[in-house]
């Protein structure tokens, strides 16, 4: 018998994602991959997988599924939501831990609170062939992940393992996506085309509050806010795009390009969100507020290196469920860095 998760309700936008594909931008293929790679790494580690394994990325509200395997270990990390085992006995679990489940368990991930992005990992991973070196789904291109699309009711997602591994269930001490953030500070490096904007336009970017629009998707976070003034230009000639680029079309409303971004584009890019703050943006739901602040390249690179270390620390502090300790000061410092809510001292190191 083959082990599968049988999807009975797909959720809003559920796809298989890993850390994305590198090396295909020059043939028009975006990186795709997790909008919140921190939560993906945690979900994977909670079930003992490599951090690079593919998992289900869940946006807005979760799927419902039935376990069709003798036993399996699953874990959810990311936006705060409840994990309900509906059958045989209703039980509710919090985000940020693994669960060992058995054949016939019917499981529902509830509506997400505070943020909008989380990951359901399963021990061993999904038995899906990589496409272009990655399990990430690129829905617009129709390839990668599970049949190149969002999962649907009736899908049987094949599992590599037929049974749960031995050992206790694990939990994280801190689940970055679970935090309610009133207004996030997103750090940007100006350029590459900041010279296409007026002084007033740059000031608008760096001093105004923006709101994530409902038309945002995996291609880009569209932002509502004051119009960013462009200098007059004719037919901007297309150039390359990298995730985090903030492009400003003629409307003056900026779009932060995310995992499924087009690889080339004909709008000037005023600034670029640093990699450490992209997951913060990736998990923001429509209506979330944010402000941009400027950082220079060297400082941005330093944050990147520190951020990698902090993720490794968060991951290393996964513990068996029975041994949860209180959050200590060092832990809090790490977790604030990861969730992008601390300002000041984290930036300049």
């Amino acid at each position, binding site marked *: 018998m083959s082990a599968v998760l049988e999807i009975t309700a797909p959720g809003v936008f559920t796809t298989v994602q890993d850390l994305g594909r590198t090396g295909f931008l*020059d043939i028009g293929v975006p990186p795709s991959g997790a909008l919140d790679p921190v939560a993906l790494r945690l979900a994977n580690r909670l079930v003992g997988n490599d951090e690079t394994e593919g998992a289900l990325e869940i946006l807005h509200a979760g799927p419902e599924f039935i376990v069709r395997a003798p036993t399996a270990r699953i874990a959810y990390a990311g936006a705060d939501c409840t994990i309900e085992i509906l059958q045989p006995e209703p039980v509710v679990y919090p985000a940020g831990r693994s669960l060992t489940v058995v054949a016939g368990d019917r499981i529902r991930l509830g509506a997400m609170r505070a943020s909008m992005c989380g990951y359901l990992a399963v021990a061993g991973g999904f038995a899906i062939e990589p496409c272009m070196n990655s399990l990430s789904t690129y829905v617009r291109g129709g390839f990668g992940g599970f049949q190149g699309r969002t999962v649907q009711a009736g899908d049987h997602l094949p599992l590599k393992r037929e049974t749960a591994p031995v050992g206790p269930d694990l939990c994280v001490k801190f689940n970055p996506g679970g935090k309610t953030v009133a207004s996030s500070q997103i750090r940007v490096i100006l350029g590459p085309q900041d010279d*296409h904007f007026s002084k007033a336009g740059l000031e608008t970017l760096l001093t105004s509050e923006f709101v994530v629009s409902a038309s945002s998707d995996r291609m880009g976070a569209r932002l509502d806010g004051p119009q960013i003034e462009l200098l007059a230009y004719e037919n901007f000639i297309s*150039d390359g795009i990298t995730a*985090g680029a903030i492009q400003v079309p003629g409307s003056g409303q900026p779009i932060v390009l995310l995992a499924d971004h087009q690889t080339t*584009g004909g709008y000037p890019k005023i600034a670029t969100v640093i990699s450490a703050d992209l997951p913060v943006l990736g998990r923001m739901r429509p209506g979330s507020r944010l402000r941009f602040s400027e950082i220079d390249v060297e400082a941005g690179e330093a944050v990147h290196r520190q951020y990698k270390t902090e993720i490794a620390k968060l991951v290393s502090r996964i513990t068996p469920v029975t041994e949860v300790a209180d959050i200590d000061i060092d832990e809090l410092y790490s977790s604030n860095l990861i969730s992008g809510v601390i300002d000041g001292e984290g930036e300049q190191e």
Partner: protein
Amino acid sequence: MERKRDLTASAENPPRLLPYGDGAFLMEFADIIDRRISEDILHLNQQVRLARLPGLLETVPTFRSLLVRYDAGKTSFRTLSGQVMALHKAGGSEPRSSRLWQVPVCYEPDFAPDLADVADATGLSPDEVVKLHVGVTYHIYMIGFVAGFPYLGDLPEALSLPRRTDPRLRVPAGSIAIALTMAAIYPLVSPGGWHLIGRTPIKLFDPGWQQPALFAPGDSIDFVPIDAARFEELTQAVETGDYQIEPQVTEA
């Protein structure tokens, strides 16, 4: 305000180095579409790739610049951009190896929904449009928009038209299209606003291929007219795997 720059790649006139976040930068050569500039960008692209610089993730040549992505955990903007700039200064005159593709195209009315309109708008007959279109060898400036979509230039001036005012929601895969100074081929069904003047039966992109895109930036393309019967024949052969287009390769 004058924004056009024609910065020819040379030691005296280096490309502009533009920061692009904490994991990328641009080497910008110009903000015009120009064949010579494209060659300079593709030349630097080849040099950078051959140099196997530590921390380099990938490069993307486009009309105006070379995008360089890197891992800030393994190198830095300062180090890598210095290395790339040095490669540019060193020049090196080794030519790029190049590939020429003979792409079969059916220009018959069933496959060319906009050919009559293009003829009207340009004051030419449909046959003259086709003759002009197949009369030049195209250069792939870059691949973008959707997976495997080549931007081909330069289109004969007599065929230059603005994009359609009513873009299509579904352009058929394989459509040969023109707009402004460019030609293109739609690899997959996608929305599009260019004028469709023919269709090719060949497949341009398959995520299952070792190299998922048939074409690479810098390749050359000749369009070769075929009739509807040959189009159907080739479509069958492509489906069964009995036809695979091969390029003529000129080694560097």
